């Protein structure tokens, strides 16, 4: 099951980190969600990738990412996947995404002085060109709108209004009033292939996994660089590409689950 974005990353312009962001978007689109890995060697690759993620994250935030981590591989069915989801959702003292990954992203962006609002102040391509095109960093909606194009299918039929949308395919953010908001999200109908009683778990897991891709993109935007070498989120999201789904069982214990 591959998600669709509705645009070609290669046609998008994301500023100084364009090549890196395109690459991340391409890998994101390549994830075959909840499909078994095609070959066994992926297992070694996933563990290596996860350890690489931890090491790179630790360079930036040693207090959040331990030196020694236990990474186990686990292969099972949907019931096992759901059980792991239940287990980590029941944690009350540890939340990997909020306690570690979001902190890592937040501190990195802050250290580099990056935030959505400031980025939005910079002239964007659509402010300097006659016609909007794919891949603008920002769409503008609201009182500060520069153009009114309508919003995809349904909205295009509407008359321009205060909140008439300017979203273009490939936009990562939208500006509404004086605020800027993320907008990118893959589209995938999990109910087609995931067992009915597991859909909610799959949706829950995927929403957080997608957030890792967003952290990965924000890292590059903050770096303003095409070099992906130091991005700790890249090896993490590549675990998804490899067909392995990380679960944090504790601060230093992780399971890479794959569906048999």
């Amino acid at each position, binding site marked *: 099951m591959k998600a669709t*974005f*509705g*645009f070609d990353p290669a046609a998008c312009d994301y500023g100084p980190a364009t090549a890196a962001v395109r690459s991340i978007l391409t890998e994101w689109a390549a994830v075959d969600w909840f499909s078994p890995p095609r070959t066994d060697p992926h297992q070694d690759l996933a563990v290596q990738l996860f350890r690489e993620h931890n090491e790179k994250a630790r360079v930036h935030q040693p207090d959040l990412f331990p030196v020694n981590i236990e990474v186990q591989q686990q292969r099972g069915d949907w019931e096992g996947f759901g059980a792991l989801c239940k287990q980590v959702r029941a944690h009350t003292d540890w939340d990997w995404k*909020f306690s570690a990954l*979001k*902190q890592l*992203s*937040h501190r990195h*962006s802050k250290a580099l002085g990056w935030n959505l609002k400031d980025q939005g102040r910079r002239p964007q391509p659509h402010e300097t060109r006659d016609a909007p095109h794919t891949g603008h960093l920002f769409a503008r*909606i*609201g*009182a500060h709108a520069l153009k009114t194009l309508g*919003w*995809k*299918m*349904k*909205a295009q039929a*509407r008359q321009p*209004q*205060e*909140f008439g*949308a300017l*979203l273009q*395919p*490939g*936009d990562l953010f*939208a500006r*509404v*009033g*004086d*605020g800027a*908001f*993320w*907008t*990118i*999200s893959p*589209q995938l109908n*999990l109910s087609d292939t995931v067992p009915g009683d597991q859909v909610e778990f799959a*949706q829950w897991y995927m*929403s*957080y996994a*997608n*957030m890792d891709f*967003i*952290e990965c993109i924000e890292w590059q935007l903050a770096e303003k660089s095409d070099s992906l070498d130091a991005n700790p989120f890249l090896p993490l999201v590549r675990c998804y590409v490899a067909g392995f789904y990380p679960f944090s069982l504790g601060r230093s214990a992780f399971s890479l689950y794959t569906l048999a």
Partner: protein
Amino acid sequence: MAPASALDFQWDRLEQLVSRDRLQTQSASFSHLRISHRDQRVFALAARKLDGEAVDFNEALRALREAVDELIPAGRTFLLGDTEFGPIIGSIISGVGIVPGEDGVLVVQVGRNGHTTTLGRLSR
């Protein structure tokens, strides 16, 4: 991009689901809503920032963004979809967000299937 499903907003259906009486009597704690504790805290803080006053959508957005920033490190707010009255802005994890209504700012939830339901009111 905003999920296509989130764009399938049915305002008529929303209006049917909204009970004005229910909205006016709701608690500002949002604890009665079937949303996560994290979302409850975010919307309660945003509502407190608005101090129960009638506000325009931009003010509500600012309060929501500030609440997310204060309560969630690297918290992000997303454009989830739009309505004829304006965009739905909120959490991509839960689908819970705010949207301008005819007479106030509403708290809504965009389901995975694209249906949007009104949960309550953020401000008058």
